[in-house]
């Protein structure tokens, strides 16, 4: 029999809050954090809004030894990992040495650190490049630094699948738990709001160029014209159910099912594959569409991509048959960090019996979606589906399941 993988700790880093309570209160209140870019002067660029994390002072969270060698996203990730383990009530150093791993997703590594070293290289010369560059900008840095900080010697990994990666990482963590690792911290924290990151994101062709924060990122709206990028994400402490039960852990939910697909090239004449990813995740969870109480959408806010997602949801669940939401309208798209933050929100939604709203969007009648807008909606949730998609046609879908307190008790 395969062991279940439970979520027993949550750490979030969101533009709407750095603590779980603050983030969840803002999310239920529909309080967005999208605003003009402040981390650099974006006035000369076509896109000028972002979901920035304000009030994060790295010095308050991390030893000064780590500061010269870390990009902003790594500092955020380290602080988030600390909060996730604290929330789980675990000091991983107390566990047997190979029992805890770390598996993160990355979108673009430490892009701002890389920017600064590239500038040093090309403006002053190679001898001005930092001794920390060899790892501070690479995609594996967050897993490596979290492993070192918490003494995690179990199986670790890093996946890159654009915005789908956050779910792929959690799925890989579940594989390791099924193979016998007691605990894996997993998810993603991304941050690349710097001029070089901005220019690279602009070439992706999906950024909104609006200046009105309330009309800039509008998934499933007739007025959708792209997204606002944000920074942050979430890390989840995932644990073998038996291990969690034995230590009397509080349980947020179970990672019940997952599947991933890849779209063919647009000129191939073949259909997109998101529907298959959703169906695969449901089948992997052993549930029917009617069992799903809410869908956290990818919400690209590109009309063509919104249509594909709305159609896939309607085909699986029936027209407007399941509540759909996109709380990322409050934070902007967080790349690899987006789906882990949605998983965290899904866990809290199941706990509190409430679906957080999508803000700003006026749902287009063109889509057969029951979009939760305006205010949170009360709902008893047993299963929630999270969808994440990446550039190039990457689709991932994951189902989280509520765990009865009686099942979580050690009897």
């Amino acid at each position, binding site marked *: 029999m395969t062991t279940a993988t439970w979520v027993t700790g949550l750490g979030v880093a969101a533009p709407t809050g750095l603590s779980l309570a603050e983030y969840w209160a803002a999310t239920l209140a529909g309080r967005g954090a999208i605003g003009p870019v402040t981390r650099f002067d974006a006035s000369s660029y076509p896109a000028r809004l972002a979901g920035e994390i304000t009030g994060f002072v790295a010095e308050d969270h991390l*030893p*000064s*030894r780590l500061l*010269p*060698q870390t990009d902003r996203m790594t500092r955020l990730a380290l602080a988030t990992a600390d909060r996730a383990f604290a929330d789980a009530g675990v000091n991983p150093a107390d566990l047997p040495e190979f029992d805890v791993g770390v598996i993160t997703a990355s979108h673009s590594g430490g892009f701002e650190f890389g920017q600064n070293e590239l500038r040093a290289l090309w403006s002053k010369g190679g*001898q001005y490049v930092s*001794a*920390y560059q060899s790892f501070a900008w690479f995609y594996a840095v967050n897993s490596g630094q979290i492993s070192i900080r918490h003494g995690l010697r179990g199986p670790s990994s890093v996946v890159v699948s654009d915005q789908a990666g956050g779910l792929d990482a959690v799925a890989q963590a579940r594989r390791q738990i099924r193979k016998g690792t007691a605990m894996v911290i997993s998810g993603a924290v991304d941050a690349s709001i710097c001029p070089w990151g901005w220019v690279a994101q602009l070439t992706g062709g999906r950024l909104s160029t609006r200046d009105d924060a309330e009309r800039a990122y509008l998934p499933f709206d007739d007025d959708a014209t792209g997204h606002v990028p944000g920074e942050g994400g979430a890390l989840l402490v995932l644990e073998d159910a038996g291990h969690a039960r034995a230590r009397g852990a509080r349980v947020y939910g179970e990672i019940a099912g997952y599947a991933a697909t890849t779209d063919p090239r647009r000129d191939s004449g073949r259909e997109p594959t998101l529907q298959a990813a959703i169906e695969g995740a449901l089948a992997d969870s052993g549930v029917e569409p009617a069992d799903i109480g809410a869908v956290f959408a990818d919400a690209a806010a590109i009309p063509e991509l919104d249509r594909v997602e709305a159609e896939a949801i309607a085909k699986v669940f029936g027209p407007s048959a399941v509540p759909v939401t996109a709380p990322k309208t409050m934070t902007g798209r967080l790349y690899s960090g987006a789906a882990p933050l949605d998983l965290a929100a899904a866990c809290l939604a199941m706990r509190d019996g409430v679906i957080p709203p999508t803000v700003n969007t006026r749902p287009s009648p063109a889509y057969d979606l029951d979009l939760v807008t305006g205010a949170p909606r009360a709902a008893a949730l047993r299963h929630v589906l999270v969808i994440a998609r990446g550039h190039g046609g990457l689709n991932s879908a994951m189902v989280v399941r509520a765990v009865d307190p009686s099942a979580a008790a050690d009897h």
Partner: protein
Amino acid sequence: MPGNQFTLDDLKTVLRQAAGTDEGVDLDGDIIDTSFDDLGYESLALLETASRIERHHGISLDEDALGEAQTPRELIDLVNTHLPAA
């Protein structure tokens, strides 16, 4: 000439910028003969530190000698042998 001498204060400034300070270590204490190891600086921190010193002073430290400098005093002495005498 003090302007041409590399001092412990100079080194402490560079160390703080290049590698921060380990928790529980007081760089303002009596550290001149304390090993870098005990001060919490490993090879990477020292490479970054040396690189900043080299750039600032326009010198090139001998690699083997650098690897052998185990304490602030040894590193300061090494740097000073590379600085032009006053």
